[in-house]
């Protein structure tokens, strides 16, 4: 059976709660050692899918394959998965040692081996000194590392993580993101990660599965999703974007010619599916929009500089086009751009390769 090449595979998994469809025909595949992130706004079905994979809810229909074996309605304790919960779910009445020893005891390992294994993973997360403490005596970051250790200790075939860093502050989150990433690389584990934080998803994942409205919207590498999103939702949800309505004037061999806002003609990257006359949207990342004279660019637009905002490393320029549409350009902060002042005219330019053409009907209704 060719399913065995996948570590995890879901096929058209559907779950409803009463009349609410929480998950609709979700199909994903994961390879051994892969880090896949389910990314989406709340209510997009990402946690429902994770729970179905963990065996914590029974799907209405569809199939779940783990390690080449059908596991759709297998109880969680027979799936050999690891799961890290958002609020850590450490057992408050057990010491850290007992918490980490729990899965090993459930697997009837002998005492000496349990001690050795627990201390080994405590060393990995650098918390060997807290073994005899209770979870409530640990900080949030330490608790999360213990929750991770409790997962690694029995070497499950896949580790599921449900917004594990959601409750931590930014600095700690950044540190733990790297830590999880390193553990993933060093231990070669397969991780299915859930988050609504797109930056976190970009930093950590091999591939990202964007979810919207109970469906899988698009799956791809961070690079693909960022520069070549295939749906309007993915383009809008991931990173910042300038998104405009347009009409296809001509489909060429290497580009697409469109009429965009303020009547300007725009060249976009090829997209196999659109036809002449079709209503589409096109998207350009703000950092792909140059300010200046617009010469040498495939596309250019004139507008009025409305606002300049320095956000740290980058400066954002808000430009109003002739018909009132707003376009944003971000540049590395260097201080001043060629003497243009707010309220003055400004030229924008961008390449056709960075202009992503998105058909209106793709995504959500596929």
């Amino acid at each position: 059976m060719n399913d065995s090449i996948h570590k995890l595979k879901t096929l058209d998994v559907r779950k409803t709660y009463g009349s609410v469809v929480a998950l609709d025909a979700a199909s994903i595949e994961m390879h051994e050692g892969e880090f896949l992130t389910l990314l989406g706004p709340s209510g997009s079905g990402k946690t429902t899918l994770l729970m179905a994979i963990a065996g914590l809810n029974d799907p209405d229909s569809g199939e779940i394959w783990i390690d080449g074996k059908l596991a759709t309605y297998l109880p969680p304790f027979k799936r050999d998965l690891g799961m890290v919960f958002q609020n850590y779910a450490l057992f408050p009445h057990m010491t850290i040692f007992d918490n980490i020893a729990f899965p090993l005891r459930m697997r009837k390992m002998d005492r000496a081996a349990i001690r050795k294994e627990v201390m080994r993973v405590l060393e990995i997360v650098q918390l060997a000194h807290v073994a005899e403490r209770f979870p409530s005596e640990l900080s949030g970051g330490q608790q999360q590392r213990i929750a991770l250790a409790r997962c690694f200790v029995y070497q499950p075939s896949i580790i599921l993580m449900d917004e594990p860093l959601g409750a931590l502050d930014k600095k700690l989150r950044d540190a733990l993101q790297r830590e999880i990433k390193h553990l993933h690389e060093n231990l070669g584990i397969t991780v299915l990660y859930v988050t609504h934080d797109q930056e976190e998803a970009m930093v950590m994942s091999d591939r990202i599965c964007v979810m919207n409205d109970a469906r899988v919207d698009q799956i791809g590498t961070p690079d693909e999703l960022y520069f070549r999103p295939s749906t309007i939702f993915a383009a809008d949800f991931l990173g910042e974007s300038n998104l405009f309505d347009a009409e296809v004037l001509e489909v060429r061999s290497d580009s697409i010619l469109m009429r965009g806002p303020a009547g300007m003609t725009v060249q976009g990257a090829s997209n196999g599916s659109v036809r002449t006359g079709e209503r589409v949207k096109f998207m350009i990342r703000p950092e792909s929009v140059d300010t200046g004279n617009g010469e040498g660019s495939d596309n250019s637009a004139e507008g009025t500089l409305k606002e300049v905002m320095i956000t740290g490393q980058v400066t954002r320029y808000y430009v109003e086009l002739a018909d009132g549409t707003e376009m944003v350009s971000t540049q590395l902060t260097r201080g001043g751009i060629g003497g243009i002042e707010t309220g003055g005219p400004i030229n924008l330019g961008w390449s056709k390769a960075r202009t992503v053409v998105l058909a209106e009907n793709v995504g959500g209704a596929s």
Partner: protein
Amino acid sequence: MSATPQQVSAALSGAIKRPRRWGGLLSISPALLFLGFFFLYPVVLLLGLSLVDNSGALSAQHYVHLFEKAVYVKVLLITLKIAGWTTVFAILAGYPIAYLLSTVKGSTRNSLVIWVLMPFWTSFLVRTFAWIVLLGRHGALNELLLALGFVDAPVRLIFNFTGVMIGMVHALMPLCVLTMLSVMENIDRNLMSAASTLGARGGQSFWRVYFPLSIPGVAAGGMLVFITSLGFFITPALLGGARDTMIVQVIIFQIQEVLNWGFAGAIAMLLLVAVLLIFSLYDQLLGLSTLSGETTQGRKKGPIGRAGQWLGGHLVATLGLVCEQAGILMDKLVPRNAARPRRAWGRITLWVSALSVIGFLCIPALFVIPVSFTEEGFLGWPPKGFSLQWYEEVLNSPAWAIAATRSFGVATASALLGMLIGVPAAFFLVRRQFVGKAALFAFLVSPIIMPNIIIAVALFYLYAKMSLVGTNIGLILGHTVLAIPYVVITVMAILKNYDHRLDQAAWTLGANKWHTLIRITLPLLSGGLIASFMFAFIISFDELTIALFVTGGEVTTLPKQMWDDALMRVSPALAAVATLLLAFMSCFILASEFIRRRGARK
């Protein structure tokens, strides 16, 4: 040194000097004074009587007498045995209900709780008589068993230990369920999910994770049931045999028949010492703070606590292992199919067992309704014909009308007085930090822990000196003593969840403390305040022990009228009264629920 004009004006407006907080003292002192005089003082007085002989000189004669005769120690042991078994059964039967309630969604829970509380709504006297009729030699249960052919001769179900158990477990289980529920509600459901993803079967995750976390609730519930059962006398008197005499019955005998106050005081002391010993044991094992639902993780434990923990750890590990093996066996009998969901047998079993226990809780209440319409002159099953004669008799009888009016008035007055005293005290306890807070809280709620009979006898003794025996005032004051702890506990519970920043917001918007209290705090707390009023009202409305003593046989309340009536003759008129009470209580609770929900929607 001269003050600048700014400093002078600041001093005048009170901005420099830290104002003294007399408000705090004002809010706590009524509760202290009231309980000091109507609870602590008479109890100390009564216990003091046990230390002196008839001439008033210090003497141990009562205690010598107490331990001289084996009978009193034996009665104490019987009392402890009955209370112990009641606790065990209340926990065993109540745990599945509490567990179920903690896992179902809000609306289902609310309607189930109403049924669980059914015994609270029916007067305990009526319940007891319902059991007599249901369990008697020719009672409904025996008739049913004979008809079904399960037994050949009627089974003896009352006037023995079984009868006492049925009556007491029935009366006290709701208390146990609600206490356990308050802890179980706060157990994170994710922990069970986590245990199962870590490889634990249902049985293992229940015994190793859920059960240990629910222990504080079990202990607190069991503790309340145990302490309350120590003070029981109506149920053992009516449903038990001669060998099921409890200690309170002996105290009553000493007061009413022998008039030996000193000896009654000595027995009361014995009871009190037993209660305190159990409390300190509980404190060693789990800590008294768990009684208010607080967690005690990381708390340093004494040797008894550590031994208990060690034993408990091995117990849950063993139980977990046993259940795991059962689960594995079950999987062999009914193999799991990964392609199809399996029926949740555990869940079904839980519902069936919980619903049958709820059925047990509701039977007596539902039983009295048909019986009240009988044409016959005695309480029998099944009721014959249909008539309203018993309702006519009750409604036309001046005795019942007077008793009902008095009960209603007394309950309203003592609930109001209890709130007037208890609400400020609760505010004080929640909002102020001071040394001895735990002790103060313990004092305010101690009337719950003190067996009611001791309060009743002590008040009788005090009232005799103040010629308050047989007055409405005396009754109201006595019931207020019992109402205050309930008011304090319920109001403290809602205040803990009250967002203090709302008050602060009102202050910054220019409201003074009084306006903030009237326009912000109290309206937001109205739901909880109504609940605590209801609680206090029902406590008084259904109270018999204090009424029995301080009325001195001159005035009567509904429960006392029922008690007197029942001692003379068990007639269907009692069932009619009970049905009327049930209807009244239902309206009362539904009305307050309606008000609460309307308040919550605002």
